[in-house]
């Protein structure tokens, strides 16, 4: 009786549980533990036109109920992704969303053009928490105008559903989300990591090789939930909730805040089977509380 299917524009997901970019590799790494095709889909590690080596170590640091990372968007580049990583996902029948990285509007355009024609890719997630090298390194995602431009550029390049992934390090998340909607985004996903840092007091220097890193995990859930709640009330496109989701209860909070689907990130690092457990918890909760569809859980205010 329960219908777990959700629609994000023309993207149809068999259920609302996705794996978040950067925490599930390219899917195969997880397959020892999990049947990835059981989930709504996977958002693969961020891909750029060229391969990237990533940041100097140390790249991770444990924080209270959270994780700081400065992986630095290490990835195999779009061509190797298509050649070496995608076929496995396609064979398994996994719904694939490709997280896209760019350092200029042109790069985003070229990348989405390249990915738009490839069989087995179901949607693009545009990571706008990337530095705009042309504009002194400020992030695309902290400027509504640039966000609009990136969205529009990508929109014009491909017919795939486009999800813009928002940075939480902004004063007004709604302003950014509206820019995505105006630019033609199919949906928005949020949040990416909060900018943070740690200091190694023995060595008297920043802990991470890159000084700053992105904070994820349960610590950030209250902030993520607040932003999802706000965005779900200021745009009309679907919202995908991300941030600190570790148990089915967290997922339900995001659905109630208005998320159409959710992504499990850091939780997978600690327990590779988290997403599966969250999915079955969602089903049980819906049964017990007589919810028929995900959308029924949204709080109407």
């Amino acid at each position, binding site marked *: 009786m329960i219908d777990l299917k959700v629609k994000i524009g023309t993207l149809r997901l068999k259920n609302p549980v996705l794996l978040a970019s*950067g*925490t*599930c*590799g390219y899917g195969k*790494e*997880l*397959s*020892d*533990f*999990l*049947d990835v*095709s059981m989930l709504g889909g996977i958002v693969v*590690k961020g891909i750029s036109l060229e391969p990237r*080596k*990533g940041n*100097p*170590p*140390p*790249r*991770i*640091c*444990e*924080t*209270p*109920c*959270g*994780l700081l*990372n400065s*992986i630095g968007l*290490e990835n195999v580049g779009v061509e190797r992704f298509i050649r070496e990583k995608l076929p496995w996902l396609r064979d*398994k029948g996994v719904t694939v969303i490709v997280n896209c990285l760019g350092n200029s509007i042109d790069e985003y355009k070229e990348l989405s053009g390249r990915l738009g024609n490839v069989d087995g890719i179901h949607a693009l997630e545009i990571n706008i928490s990337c530095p705009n090298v042309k504009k002194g390194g400020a992030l695309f995602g902290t400027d509504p105008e640039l966000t609009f431009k990136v969205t529009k550029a990508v929109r014009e390049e491909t017919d795939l559903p486009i999800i813009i992934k928002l940075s939480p390090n902004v004063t007004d998340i709604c302003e950014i989300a509206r820019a995505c909607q105006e630019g033609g985004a199919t949906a928005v996903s949020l949040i990416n990591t909060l900018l943070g840092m740690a200091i190694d007091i023995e060595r008297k220097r920043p802990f991470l090789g890159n000084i700053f890193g992105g904070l994820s*995990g*349960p610590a950030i859930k209250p902030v993520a939930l607040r932003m999802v709640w706000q965005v779900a009330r200021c745009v009309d496109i679907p919202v995908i909730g991300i941030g600190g989701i*570790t148990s089915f209860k967290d997922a339900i909070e995001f659905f109630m805040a208005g998320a159409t689907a959710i992504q499990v990130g*850091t939780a*997978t*690092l*600690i*327990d*590779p*089977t988290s997403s599966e457990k969250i999915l079955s918890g969602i089903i049980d909760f819906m049964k017990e509380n007589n919810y028929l569809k995900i959308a029924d859980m949204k709080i109407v205010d």
Partner: protein
Amino acid sequence: MLQKRQILRQKVLSNTEIRPNIFLLKVASPEISVSATPGQFCMLRVTEDKSNDPFLKRPLSIHWINKDTGEIQFLYRIVGRGTELLSLIREGEEIELIGPLGQGFKIEDKEIPIIVGGGIGIAPLLFLADILRGTRGVVILGAVTKSLLLRLGAFKESGLEILVATEDGSFGNKGLVTEVFDRLMARLDESDRKRCMVFSCGPFPMLRALYHLCKIYGVKCQVSLETFMACGTGLCLGCAVKAREGFLHVCKDGPCVDAKLIDWEG
């Protein structure tokens, strides 16, 4: 699709302080004992059920395995919050862990194995010594002083030749393991050296010194690396260390790697 691996919850057989702040943890884990090879590690949950802090699992090398009884052992030193919490787990309680993970040591038949371990770095080497039982292998164990020398008796059971170095000379040779290694290599002839394979684990400066000696003597060398890990399963790319070219990811490319791949000055 077959789920090969699971998050395991297994019974703790004992968790004993064998030296101040050094613990030997024994866990009943038939699953891990059947498939693990020397040099592999596990991620252990040190956090209480229902708590999220400390947040990450901790990597520990597999110290020894009894394939018959399905018992696995870890040897660890308390260095921070996580290992301290781990030390509080008692016999009969359950522990959550994932493993075996990563690449173990690569062992080839015709080689002469030389095992070199310093301090708590001997942890992954007992399992290895046990597997190498019956070879011409040599084990060099080092410690600051006699009372910090770990698991000597257990290594002896492997039947391999054991050399010991203590920095203060309170037991075995006075000095560093690398000095003992140096003298050993100097005694071997060229053709024997070519057949040697060094397996090592210990503090980074020790590994670096050892690697340089191996280069001089033309001896092959594998080392077990340590770095901060979030997942241990290849998902996060957090465990990068500088390599000759780009980065190595310790949890997937290692922890045991050919020493010449590493950027030792990085």
